[in-house]
């Protein structure tokens, strides 16, 4: 019986410790996060752990949008209060942050996460609690399949991978590709999978797929393998911090073929550090920073004034996600969650920093991918690939 006693005490202790958080029975569904003069929006991204800088960029972008909106009178007459939680790149933290946002803070909408695996963990919690969730940058297709309240404002790997393969095959006329990808990163593996499938479907051949693990900085092994495969293009669906090193090490070993990349390349530091090595390379992005558009330049300027550097694409998506929510509330004219989600579903031709987009019937943003080329230390737009162009 002593064991049982130990156990009872332990359990009692747990219960006792947390009893403070008693359940608030009222305000179950319906309008969310609204107090007298403010509305709560939730943001959950990783600002510590492996991909901390992506989370921080997203948060910085969202912060700018929130202060702009508040300065302009808020959403529907209410000031925006951003409730932010760091989820430390861990699924268990994503789950508890999502639960906290949905049931304790009772936010109107949850915004996050960057990493698809973390969005997948958070999505069911938001869905069952009737709170819409919008991911700014999770590109893995199944994320939005978790329920009719789950949205994203970026394109999916499926579209981007296929579009990039078509670009390589048709626009650039390449036939032999080599892929370098991060095997621990779903973003990277997802794009690589779709690229390979489409590229080979078109008649090209992927000669080799070289993988590396998180935090790798010595790519000599991968580079030498790529070199002996003699491709005419290298596809590197990786983030800017990796491509800087990969580009340098490929060029250092005399691999001079163009490298093709994805939106993960977009960063203020890319050209500072890799302009020479990535000369003549292409990447697909949400938008072009040279776009003379007022909104784009305005955001870039505000961001640069505040943080000293130009924004990365993740910061731009963080900025856009807040405006996406604002647009939906404005359209719905109410803070009723179901109606806001309905307005989100009907979002059409919404202009954001990362392009003009429409939410499709799978709750994904349908928007063009902007192909950019690095030439003479600058990024130039090659063309836009429209969603209709890709099968």
């Amino acid at each position, binding site marked *: 019986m002593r064991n049982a006693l130990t156990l009872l005490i332990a359990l009692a202790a747990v219960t006792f410790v947390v009893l403070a958080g008693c359940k608030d029975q009222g305000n179950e569904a319906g309008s969310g996060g609204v107090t007298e003069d403010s509305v709560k929006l939730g943001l959950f991204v990783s600002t510590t752990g492996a991909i901390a800088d992506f989370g921080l960029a997203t948060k910085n972008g969202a912060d700018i949008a929130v202060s702009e909106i508040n300065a302009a009178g808020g959403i529907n007459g209410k000031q925006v209060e951003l409730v932010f939680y760091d989820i430390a790149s861990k699924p268990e933290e994503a*789950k508890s942050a999502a639960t906290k946002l949905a049931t304790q803070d009772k936010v109107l909408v949850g915004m996050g996460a960057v990493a698809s695996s973390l969005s*997948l963990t958070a999505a069911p919690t938001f869905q069952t609690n009737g709170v819409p969730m919008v991911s700014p940058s999770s590109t893995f297709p199944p994320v939005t399949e978790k329920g009719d309240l789950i949205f994203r404002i970026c394109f999916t790997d499926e579209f981007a991978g296929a579009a990039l393969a078509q670009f390589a095959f048709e626009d650039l006329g390449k036939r032999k590709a080599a892929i370098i990808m991060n095997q*621990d990163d779903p973003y990277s593996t997802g794009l690589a*999978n779709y690229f390979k499938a489409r590229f080979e*479907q078109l008649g090209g051949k992927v000669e080799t797929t070289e993988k590396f693990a998180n935090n790798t900085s010595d790519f000599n092994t991968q580079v030498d393998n790529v070199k002996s495969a003699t491709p005419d293009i290298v596809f590197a669906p990786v983030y800017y911090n990796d491509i800087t090193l990969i580009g340098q090490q490929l060029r250092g070993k005399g691999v001079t073929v163009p490298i093709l990349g994805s939106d993960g390349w977009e960063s203020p530091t890319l050209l500072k550090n890799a302009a020479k090595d990535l000369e003549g390379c292409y990447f697909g992005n949400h938008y072009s920073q040279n776009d003379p558009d007022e909104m784009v330049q305005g955001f870039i300027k505000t961001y640069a004034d505040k943080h000293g550097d130009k924004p990365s694409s993740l910061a731009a998506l963080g900025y856009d996600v807040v405006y996406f929510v604002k647009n939906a509330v404005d359209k719905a004219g109410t803070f009723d969650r179901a109606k806001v989600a309905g307005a989100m579903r009907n979002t059409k031709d919404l202009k954001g920093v990362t392009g003009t987009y429409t939410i499709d019937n799978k709750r994904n943003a349908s928007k063009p991918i902007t192909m950019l080329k690095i030439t003479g230390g600058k990024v130039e737009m090659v063309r836009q690939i429209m969603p209709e162009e890709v099968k």
Partner: protein
Amino acid sequence: MRRSLATLLVALAICAGMNLFLAQFIEEYVVQVINMVGVSIILAVSLNVINGLTGQFSLGHAGFMAIGAYVSAFFTTDLSYFNPDTAEYVTDPALVSSVWGYLGALIAGGVAAAVAGVLVGIPTLRLKGDYLAIATLGFGEIVRILITNFEKVGGANGLSGVPQFQIVLSGEGKDALALDGTFFIFSFVIICVLLSAQLQRSTFGRALIAVRENELAAEVMGIPTVRMKIFAFVYGAFFAGIAGGLFAHLLQTVTPASFTFMKSVEVVVMLVLGGLGSMTGAIVGAIVLTVLPEALRDVEQEADLPGIRMVVYSLVLILLMIFRPQGIFGQRELSLRLLRRLVPGRRISGDETPKPSEDRKGTEL
């Protein structure tokens, strides 16, 4: 035997009661944290059998947990994986969908982890101390890398859409009175804690402790040390596998990123913080280290300093170790002292576990 069975039934009833109480009156977020605490308790108590009782330093608990998580989710989840030929995600429907199926899947996960425990237990025939630690760490990393490259279970994305199960008592839909995750998790917490406590006091458990204290002497005394060590690994791995399965169904996703060696380190930290060798310590360590990061979440939100949470966490860890290196409980158990005080005059013998020997050389005079 009958008494243990009665204890178990009473405990299960308490679990059910606790489940209903929490669901009714406590915020979902808090329940979520309590459930995580339950998973941590199973992990810490089971690792205590390997590290604390038997004195084998394992850093591979995340590997066992991963095996349990993936095996159980493999049975209960609609598997969605990439088919490179059609460039589409294919879905295989789940193999089981009932509560009994879920329990079976959990046990299967535990058994699979236990089998891995045998495989890891064998090197312990030869390795000691830090060498064993690094070998088990290597095992955990191998498991993780294999899973990451196994497309059928989602590769780096892992599995999502892992279902949650419940036993409906009455009613329907959202308002139904039902036993859910909390009940399953804490039932296993109770089974694990009861069994481990039983083990600790049995002759068998004393043999494990003998292996920890002095392997050579234990061998001379006729204790089959090799078999003991393998047993400890199998036992620990089984419950780590169960914990992994519960973890997967609690989070509704499993990703390889959850099972890095830092996860193993986290569990070891729970043990040492609570007091290595003490089950009460393991439980308290698990509670403290699961609740602490959550509690610090609000601090971080207030301070608006992303990352400060982990700095505080690590400082707490360092200071605790410097000022109380034996852990919160040392080697003591809570129940014993309490019972002594409650029942004056009654001597309870045979419950004190011997102190670990000072095994480091070069102790200063």
